[in-house]
């Protein structure tokens, strides 16, 4: 069965596409609601670009963009889909929010969205399936062939802490401050098939590995691997999955532009050879990013030195600047750079709101207002109500 779907379908030059998992909140206490089916039904009746799909629990939906060449068109489309979802949500009196986690929902209250696959995941993973009510951004990067995809996956692994720190937006879980900037990834780690791609060097080698796993009956397709970064042959992409869903589509587009420009640098300049050391240091660096965000310290596998995460990102931004420029992402990355320099992250914004308002209900409410565009994200400051 894997024959067709494991053939790597080439993508035109370094395209980018985005998936955002979103929270559906009620308007009463701003806890997660259960209106995914009604929301999707209403959206079916309205014309909008992209796609909106169900996710594992009834409190989530997933937004998919089309394939884009650069930041500008991506952002325009994301805004249009956001507006369509917002309008539908308002008619149903629910709210839509970004953010990697809901601040205070109780996982036991969640209900699985009734499809065959999601019911299977519930029977297989038990409570983990409900705890999986966390919200990520996935960025797809188009690759010319399978070998390039394998190479890109290995090199991007070095930058996983960047992706985490830039998108971190899940400081609260189950009503508590976790002390993490991104607590969402701790939930992902509980799944047996989470982790990273094995250290294969070509698409042929990867297929060999995949067939072995399939032969053991461990996986059926690529979707069964919950890796941080995975090749997606049927789309012809490499999919980065470690991002928390940012609080705004604007931030989501900036992050996608960063990943796209970085990928161009990697595929055009071929700056490093894949290194096992990246994976040796992987969990340490990943933890630093989850726990401390931009303030974390990583060990660079290639220089074998410690580096502050913020400095490492700023350095990388400088290196990929020419690629950003030729993609048309220059302005976007300049904006992202300013955010990094200012230390402004979504996790910090959420904590700021909580300090200001003293209630997680208010955090969830304002998180929704922000995503729906009813409140503007001014310099990361906590806006007055």
């Amino acid at each position, binding site marked *: 069965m894997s024959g067709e779907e494991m053939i790597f379908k080439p993508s035109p030059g370094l395209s980018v596409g985005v998936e955002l998992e979103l929270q559906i909140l*009620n*308007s*009463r*206490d*701003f806890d997660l*609601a*259960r*209106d995914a*089916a*009604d929301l999707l*039904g*209403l959206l079916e*009746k309205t014309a909008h670009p992209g796609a909106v799909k169900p996710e594992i629990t009834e409190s989530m939906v997933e937004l998919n963009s089309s394939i884009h060449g650069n930041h500008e068109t991506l952002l325009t489309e994301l805004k249009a889909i956001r507006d369509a979802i917002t309008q*539908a949500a*308002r*008619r*149903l*009196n629910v709210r839509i929010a970004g953010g990697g986690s809901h601040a205070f929902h109780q996982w*036991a*209250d969640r*209900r699985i969205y*009734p499809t065959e696959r999601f019911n299977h995941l*519930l029977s297989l993973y*038990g*409570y983990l399936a*409900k705890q999986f009510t966390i919200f990520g951004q996935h960025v797809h990067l188009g690759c010319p062939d399978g070998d390039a995809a394998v190479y890109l996956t290995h090199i991007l692994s070095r930058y996983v802490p960047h992706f985490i720190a830039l998108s971190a937006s899940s400081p609260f879980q189950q009503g508590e401050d976790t002390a993490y900037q991104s607590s969402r990834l701790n939930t992902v780690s509980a799944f047996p098939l989470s982790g990273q791609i094995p250290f294969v060097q070509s698409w042929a080698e990867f297929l060999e590995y995949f067939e072995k796993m399939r032969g053991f009956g461990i996986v059926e397709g690529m979707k069964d691997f919950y890796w941080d970064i995975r090749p997606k042959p049927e789309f012809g992409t490499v999919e980065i999955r470690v991002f928390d869903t940012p609080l705004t589509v604007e931030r989501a587009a900036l992050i996608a532009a960063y990943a796209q420009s970085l990928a161009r640098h990697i595929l055009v300049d071929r700056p490093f050879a894949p290194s096992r050391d990246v994976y040796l240091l992987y969990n340490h660096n990943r933890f630093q990013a989850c726990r401390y965000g931009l303030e974390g310290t990583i060990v660079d596998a290639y220089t074998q030195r410690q580096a502050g995460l913020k400095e490492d990102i700023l350095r990388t931004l400088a290196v990929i600047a020419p690629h950003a420029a030729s993609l048309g992402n220059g302005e976007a990355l300049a904006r992202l750079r300013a955010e990094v320099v200012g230390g402004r992250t979504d996790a910090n914004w959420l904590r700021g709101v909580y300090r200001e*308002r*003293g*209630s997680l*209900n*208010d955090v969830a*409410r304002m998180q929704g207002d922000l995503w729906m565009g009813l409140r503007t994200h001014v310099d990361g400051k906590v806006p007055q*109500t």
Partner: protein
Amino acid sequence: MTQLSFLPEFPPVASPLALFGLLLIAGMVGGELVNRVLRVPRIVGYVLTGMFLGASGLGLLDAQQIKEAWIFVDIALGMVLFELGRRLDFTWLRRDPWLAATGVLESGLSFALVFGALTYFDVPPIYAVVAASIAIATSPVVVMVVAQELKAEGQVTERALNLVAINSVIAFVAATMLLAWLHHEYQAGWQTIVLHPVYLLTGSLGLGFLATGMLLLLSRWLGKTGRGHFVVTLALVLVTVGLARTLELSVVLVLLAFGVMSKNLDERHDLMPFEIGRVGEIFVVVLFVVSGASLHLDGLIEGGTLALVLILARFAGKSAGVLALTYFSGVRRGTAGLLCLALTPMSGMAISIVQNTTQLYPEFGAKLAAIVLSAVLILELIGPVAVQFALKRAGEAKDEAV
């Protein structure tokens, strides 16, 4: 003074507190039994327990005791109506005007059809019109409690609760305005005719407004402490219920207004959201036991046929209104049908309206009671089952397994 004067009087007089506890236990047992054996909502069991203990059954609860226990009913009613008021979200009604329109249309149609049907069966117009206005309201308590029991959440639940809030307000305003007619019919002076309804409406809204102001001030001062807000809200609900009684205002309208205003006037989101939950549950049990006890089975024989006419006409009216307009709200297919079922329970508030009217005009009240209370009796038993079915069928009840 005899040697044994330290002993209590004989026969002993039950204190209201013991009465409350006993009713609670009896209700819990009845509710649990009915739930286990018949798989219907516990409310049905509470009502049956009340009927079993009350005038229709063993006669253990007499009118005096029911009157004493009525305070607990008021507390329960206060909490539920306050919470229901908080669900009536004006911003939503602005964004989905079809929902507001549905509420108005189903209220209007159920009024018209009930009035038409009753007069067709030779009920004098003045009784028919009061019965019809009472029939507009869906029981806030039944819908709310069943929804809470099932931990239901979704479009059918939320829309049903908003429609209930709308039709409760419309029913109350209609009943109050009819009071004027009633006064007129009974040759009251013009001051009574005009001023009584005006007093009821403005007084109830005013009291609700004052309570809201107090609540928002206190919660702002307390800051965001969940427990503090809970206690203050509960306290103000009690104060408001008590004042509504003292001032001869409507508990229903005052508490509904309090809830609605505390949600819609709280622009800075000072009040933390919470649910009255467990505490409310206790009083709700007693509410249904007592309302069961105050229903008379013998009235059913007298008013039974007309009650059935009322029920059918009401269901037809509500369904026509809901089915006509719900489509335009863009919800899933099937939602409208389930909403019709969810609006079935008739309001226990009918009991208090009838009682109030009886106090004012005993003869009128008795005739009205035969029709209305029989309908309430039937729907107290069927209504919760209909709501439970609707919410479960909509897939909005919380599932039990992991």
